[in-house]
């Protein structure tokens, strides 16, 4: 790794480039309220973020990313449209890989704009693409919105769709749900026994804790309803699988997805959005014929990115994390906005990695 002073200088250089592109520089606190982050990311964030406490503010986390505080800042008093840039340290606990950095700098560019999201997606990607061009990195793109649209378009109960949407970023549980809802996985014995009982609570014994009998009854009713619902058809499962398997250059991917949309019209709008984005990217000078697209890209690490996603990696250094990542996070603004929302897309570069790779060339 280069000297820290050199990394800070590189961060300043990158932030100046983002300012030239029209972004307003902003700062955020390093100590962030843990409650907000836990609410968003769940208990998993504790494995990734440093937690500390004080008697007045309660549990705090050392900023694990900039996106959440910037969205909060924008939702509280931002004018629209808005472009922001930031540079600063983030902190990540490393439980598995001692080689990965537990603190490093990020420099980011975020766009909040209601009109023409394809153009905003292309603007963010192309800007970072231009800045990183000398490093010869491999760009990968994806779009979580297409899988989301496919789930919404399934001919099944709203409850099943909600369960699938909830686990869209947890591929293993998502697959288990698909298997169960399509009748591929057997009904667990305990579930079958429960459904066969007239009065399941009769033998239940004393009920302790906060979760009360009405909540148990509501879930049993939901399970009974689910047992009566027709399984998701093999054809529809096949279409979900086909979407997840799309891994092509962008124009070929678009062609494949258009074919899938003939059988699953619910994804048409999301595929149109992909087409509009590719057009906008081409307008920004990106060679879309060579640009890689994976429908399942970003599904495991990029929770709350619910549309376009991208990453830049050094192909000859698979040991390194991506030099830059980003995407669209409309859902995050919905969660943090308490009833309000604004379409948002952004990306960040790790100046330390960019500098190290630049020196190596």
């Amino acid at each position, binding site marked *: 790794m280069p000297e820290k002073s050199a990394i800070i200088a590189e961060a300043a250089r990158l932030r100046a480039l983002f300012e030239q592109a029209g972004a307003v520089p902003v700062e955020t606190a390093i100590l962030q309220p843990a409650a907000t982050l836990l609410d968003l990311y769940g208990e998993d964030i504790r494995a990734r973020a440093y937690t500390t406490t004080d008697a007045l503010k309660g549990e705090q986390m050392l900023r694990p990313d900039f996106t959440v505080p910037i969205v909060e800042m924008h939702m509280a008093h931002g004018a629209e449209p808005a472009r922001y840039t930031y540079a600063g340290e983030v902190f990540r606990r490393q439980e598995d890989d001692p080689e990965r950095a537990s603190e490093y700098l990020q420099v980011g560019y975020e766009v909040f704009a209601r009109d023409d999201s394809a153009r905003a997606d292309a603007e963010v990607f192309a800007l970072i693409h231009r800045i990183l061009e000398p490093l010869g990195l491999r760009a990968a793109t994806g779009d979580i919105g297409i899988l989301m649209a496919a789930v919404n378009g399934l001919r099944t109960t709203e409850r099943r769709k909600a369960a699938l949407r909830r686990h869209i970023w947890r591929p293993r549980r998502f697959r288990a749900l698909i298997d169960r809802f399509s009748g591929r996985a057997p009904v667990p014995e305990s579930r079958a026994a429960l459904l066969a009982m007239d009065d399941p609570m009769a033998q239940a014994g004393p009920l302790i*804790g906060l979760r009360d009998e009405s909540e*148990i009854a509501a879930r049993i009713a939901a399970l009974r309803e689910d047992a009566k619902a027709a399984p998701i058809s093999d054809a529809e499962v096949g279409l979900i699988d086909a979407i997840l398997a799309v891994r092509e250059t962008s124009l070929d991917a678009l062609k494949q997805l258009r074919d899938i949309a003939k059988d699953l019209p619910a994804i048409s709008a999301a595929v149109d959005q992909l087409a509009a984005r590719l057009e906008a990217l081409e307008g920004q000078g990106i060679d879309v014929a060579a640009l890689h697209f994976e429908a399942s890209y970003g599904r495991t690490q990029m929770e709350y990115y619910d549309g376009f996603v991208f990453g830049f990696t050094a192909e000859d250094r698979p040991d390194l994390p991506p030099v830059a990542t980003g995407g669209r996070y409309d859902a995050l603004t919905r969660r943090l906005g308490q009833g309000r929302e604004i379409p948002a897309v952004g990306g960040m570069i790790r100046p330390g990695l960019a500098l190290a790779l630049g020196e190596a060339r």
Partner: protein
Amino acid sequence: MSVKLGVPSKGRLMEKTFQWFGERGITLSRAGSEREYAGQVAGIDGVELILLSAGEIPRELAAGRIHLGVTGNDLVQEKLVGWNAHVEAMAPMGFGQADLVLAVPSAWVDVGTLDDLDAAAAAFRQVHGFRLRIATKYHRLVREFLRDNGVADYALVDSQGATEGTVKFETAEAIADITSSGDTLRANHLKVLEDGLILRSQATLFRARQAEIGDADRAILAELLSRLQVS
């Protein structure tokens, strides 16, 4: 210098450890009074017995301050990140068996599996406005287990003892704790999820991978391990 052996400092775990070594010709005993945490070793020269809390033995092994240590593999796996890089499990010792399990109220007739727990957690959060709480002292093991199994919308709350009581006390909705027979769980109206076994644990003899050791001590350690028939 000497080869340092860390052993739990009290209770059945200590007695069983002494017995296990005794059966292999190495006599361990407390020095002096019942209250003194120093020990004696007979049957081999150059081995020093250090009596420690079972919970501290993983840390002492990782730091290389003891060469061998007896503790549960649950504690080693909870407390040491990448435990395999720090210690080597030399021999399971056949006592101190306990399972780390996930348990919910028996009256939750609708929850038998992790899949059910996940669905119940989602509904619980909507009704109560906070995430379903799981009381445990094994934060890392439980979190990893639930992440691997794709369970969401839960929160871990710390419980260092009497964990089975937290549900009745309404400071948690479910628990993850060590159980050997399941009696305590049943007495507290809790049941283990069908796929809720997080880890099987028993007392285990561990060797520190990174402890400094001179040539003389290395020979003593080899001799000790061969007498224990674990090398």
